């Protein structure tokens, strides 16, 4: 067990103006699951890119010892030849090719460029079995869920005779069942002697599977914890990541709840693409002034679809039902009308749907309410600068100026820009869809603080989140959704991880 398969010594990697890694040391034992944790920007992904040869030898300082020998990888295929396979957070699968084609892409079973299909399919079936998939090898990637796609990636890694598997946030977009399946698979591989490195923000998962945990902070190694010799709690890990103990991950709040702001009645929606399939069934809920309301549920439960169908009918079709603001029926049939009615929707995918990444902070901040900084269609530059500067300081957006392109901001700061944009439309009810996904713990705290402030100002907050502790820590009331229905409404006192899961499971039995 104590055979060291990989040792990285004194790795220093500099980008123009930034030292991304500073003298990092990292040791992995053969046959273990080694977790690499740290806040966003701590250098985890950079370290793995150094290891896999994405950054070729010579562009960094330090040594890599693998299998007892010093190695210098100049391309990814150099490291792959030795069985080091990395699976990136953004999956590298071609959606319109089949599972078999994807697994052997660039590595086809062929003679003189002619692919041997029967052999390819047979090999694929073998590999899929190993990762617990029963899909036919000819299935297109686009037709299977994200969870299964992740497993196909692993099957692809197995096809390359992997010895050291690196997973960059493998469960970030998976629901709990798929995550569990994936983690189980990793543990099974461990018994077969395979080594894995897993980068993750989900500390409970890490605790479940990791043998050792290495913590990075600000481009340096903080410490390596051995889970076999000591009991490593989440608080212990967080302390290492942020450099301070974070007793309370959620800022305290005194709720002052007022009248009902948003009420949604008998909301029925059919699927956007499969047009004869009803997706949401009789959804009813309310959000009151000063209240933070959560929607819990598994992936695919219909939470995002509920929010988007209400917000200007931007998802689904054949939408029926009523939306009331302060008791009066409002028209939300287009996005501008939904905004006028006092709604704002902060999307779960800030890069694809929330921001114009090539535009700067200022331009993104005013995008939804340009007319407020313009007269007769002409933008008043000074008014716009003032608005953007005000939000930048109010929400503490870290950037060198309001002219910085949003693509260069960290996840937390990008999220604050999206929030600025919607706050500037002065909404009564904000729908926040996974507002803290993929942002680090320090920035999460700041987002929670902003949410609390908004509630204190009398706005209604509807928060969708897949992280149950987050909902429990911030919400006054939680709706539970499953399979397009609201299956429970829990008060703060009733809500717990168990009660939420129980509601989901029970509703599943009924159908």
């Amino acid at each position, binding site marked *: 067990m104590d055979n060291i398969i990989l040792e990285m010594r004194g790795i220093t990697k500099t980008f123009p103006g930034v030292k991304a890694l500073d003298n990092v040391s990292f040791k992995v034992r053969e046959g273990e699951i080694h977790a690499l944790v740290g806040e966003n920007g701590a250098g985890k992904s950079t370290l793995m890119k150094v290891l896999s040869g994405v950054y070729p030898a010579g562009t960094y300082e330090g040594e890599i010892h693998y299998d007892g020998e010093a190695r210098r990888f100049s391309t990814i295929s150099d490291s792959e030849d030795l069985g080091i396979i990395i699976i990136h957070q953004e999956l590298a699968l071609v959606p319109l090719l089949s599972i078999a084609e994807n697994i052997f892409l660039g590595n086809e079973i062929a003679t003189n460029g002619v692919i041997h299909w029967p052999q390819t399919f047979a090999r694929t079936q073998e590999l899929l079995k190993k990762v617990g998939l029963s899909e036919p090898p000819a299935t297109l990637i686009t037709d299977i869920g994200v969870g299964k796609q992740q497993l196909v990636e692993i099957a692809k890694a197995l096809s390359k005779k992997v010895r050291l598997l690196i997973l960059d946030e493998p469960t970030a977009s998976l629901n709990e069942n798929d995550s569990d399946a994936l983690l189980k698979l990793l543990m099974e591989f461990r018994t077969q002697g395979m080594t894995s490195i897993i980068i993750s923000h989900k500390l409970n998962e890490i605790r479940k599977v990791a043998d050792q945990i290495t913590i990075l902070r600000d481009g340096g190694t903080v410490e390596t914890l051995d889970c076999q010799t000591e009991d490593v709690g989440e608080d212990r890990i967080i302390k290492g990541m942020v450099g301070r103990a974070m007793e309370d991950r959620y800022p305290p709040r005194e709720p002052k709840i007022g009248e009902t702001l948003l009420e949604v009645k008998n909301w029925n929606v059919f699927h956007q693409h499969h047009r004869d399939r009803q997706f949401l069934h009789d959804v009813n809920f309310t959000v009151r002034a000063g209240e933070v309301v959560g929607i819990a549920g598994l992936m695919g439960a219909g939470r995002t679809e509920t929010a988007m169908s209400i917000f200007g009918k931007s998802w689904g079709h054949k939408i029926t039902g009523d939306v009331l603001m302060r008791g009066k029926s409002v028209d939300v049939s287009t*996005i501008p009308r939904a905004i006028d009615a006092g709604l704002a929707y902060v999307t779960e995918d800030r890069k*694809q749907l929330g921001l*114009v990444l090539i535009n700067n902070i200022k331009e993104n901040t005013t995008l939804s309410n340009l007319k407020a900084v313009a007269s007769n269609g002409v933008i008043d530059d000074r008014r716009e600068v003032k608005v953007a500067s005000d939000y930048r300081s109010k929400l503490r957006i870290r950037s060198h100026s309001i002219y910085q392109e949003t693509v260069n901001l960290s996840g937390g700061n990008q999220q604050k820009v999206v929030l600025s944009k919607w706050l500037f439309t002065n909404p009564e009810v904000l729908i926040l869809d996974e507002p803290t996904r993929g942002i680090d713990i320090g920035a999460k705290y700041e987002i929670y603080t902003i949410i609390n402030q908004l509630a204190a100002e009398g706005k209604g907050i509807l928060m969708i989140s897949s992280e149950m502790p987050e909902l429990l820590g911030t919400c006054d009331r939680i709706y539970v959704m499953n399979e397009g229905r609201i299956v429970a409404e829990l008060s703060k006192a009733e809500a717990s991880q168990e009660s939420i899961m129980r509601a989901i499971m029970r509703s599943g039995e009924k159908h």
Partner: protein
Amino acid sequence: MVADTSTQPNKPSIGDYLKNNIREYGLLVALVVIMLFFQFVTNGVLFRPVNITNLVLQNSFIVIMALGMLLIIVAGHIDLSVGSIVAFIGAISAIMLVKWGLPAIVVIPACLIVGGIMGAAQGYWVAYQKIPSFIVTLAGMLVFRGLTYVVLGGRPIGPFPKEFQLLSTGFVPDFLSLSDPATSLIKNYVALFAVLALVAYAIYAGFRNRRINEQHGTENEPFIFFAIQMAVIAVVALFIGFQLSTYRGLPNVLIAMAVLIALYTFITTRSTIGRRIYAMGGNVKAAKLSGINTERLTFYTFINMGVLAALAGMIITARLNSATPKAGVGFELDVIAACFIGGASASGGVGKITGAVIGAFIMGVMNNGMSIMGIGIDYQQLIKGLVLLAAVFFDVYNKNKG
């Protein structure tokens, strides 16, 4: 990771500024270098008053269409049909003026409206039916070219009445008449004074803008760049103004072009509609979820393109004094090339009016200069193609380095 949350933006250093804006200054420098090069190899023919006038007349329609094309490209689309719209508008203007005898004052607005309808006819499919603009305008290119043949019956129509020709061959008359044009060097004082006034205003406005920016803590370009840029523009403008004044003065087309350039610069930099087009081109989904009616906006940019193509079509037809079925063949490529040389991004969201205009002039000066040198059309095409590739490579190279 040191946080800076002060409300005052930091002043960038001169080096940073140059690095961030190398594209714009590079383009201006490239134009000046190309001009000087051809001035040298053509033994001074390039900057002769007659030739400058020709340059303006020959390129005006490319510049005018580049204004609309830039908006289309920034919005994330492309329009291949403009050459065919040019031909079709030429044809129907000929029918109306020559065959039906309608006055120019009626025909000109009618043609602009028809251009708008042609743009709308394509914009509808792109905006509301989500058909890729490449396909829709490829279809438009064929359809409108075919219609041109149908309307003209395959034969050219001309000549055109005088008042229509003024559109392209007219000059602003010298109502000042300070000296006898027969003996004096300066034959048109209006041109000279107009350019002088314009340069003076530009310098005044530039300084005023800097002052206001300073008061409000907005970013200013370093003074040295501002000064050099102003000086180059002033010298070039004054020189051209002087040269024109020794010939026939300011062409009407130059005035129209200048007004349109100013208008579209304003739209792209200061108006809400311009801002929304950039946001849409940058990320159409985010723009839509921000409450922007992206379909309507796309529809409008195509209508706008159609109107500008119609204007360009009339200018060309008036200049050639004949409507032919082959008019405007390949213009779409020159116009699109001008935008890309000017720094527009093929994936949308990026591009400037000034860039597209300078890009159009780079193409124009090269066309003109190479023709004077007697280089054949074959090599002209080859060289222009390489310049386009080099300009875009320069963009990509800068982006990857930065």
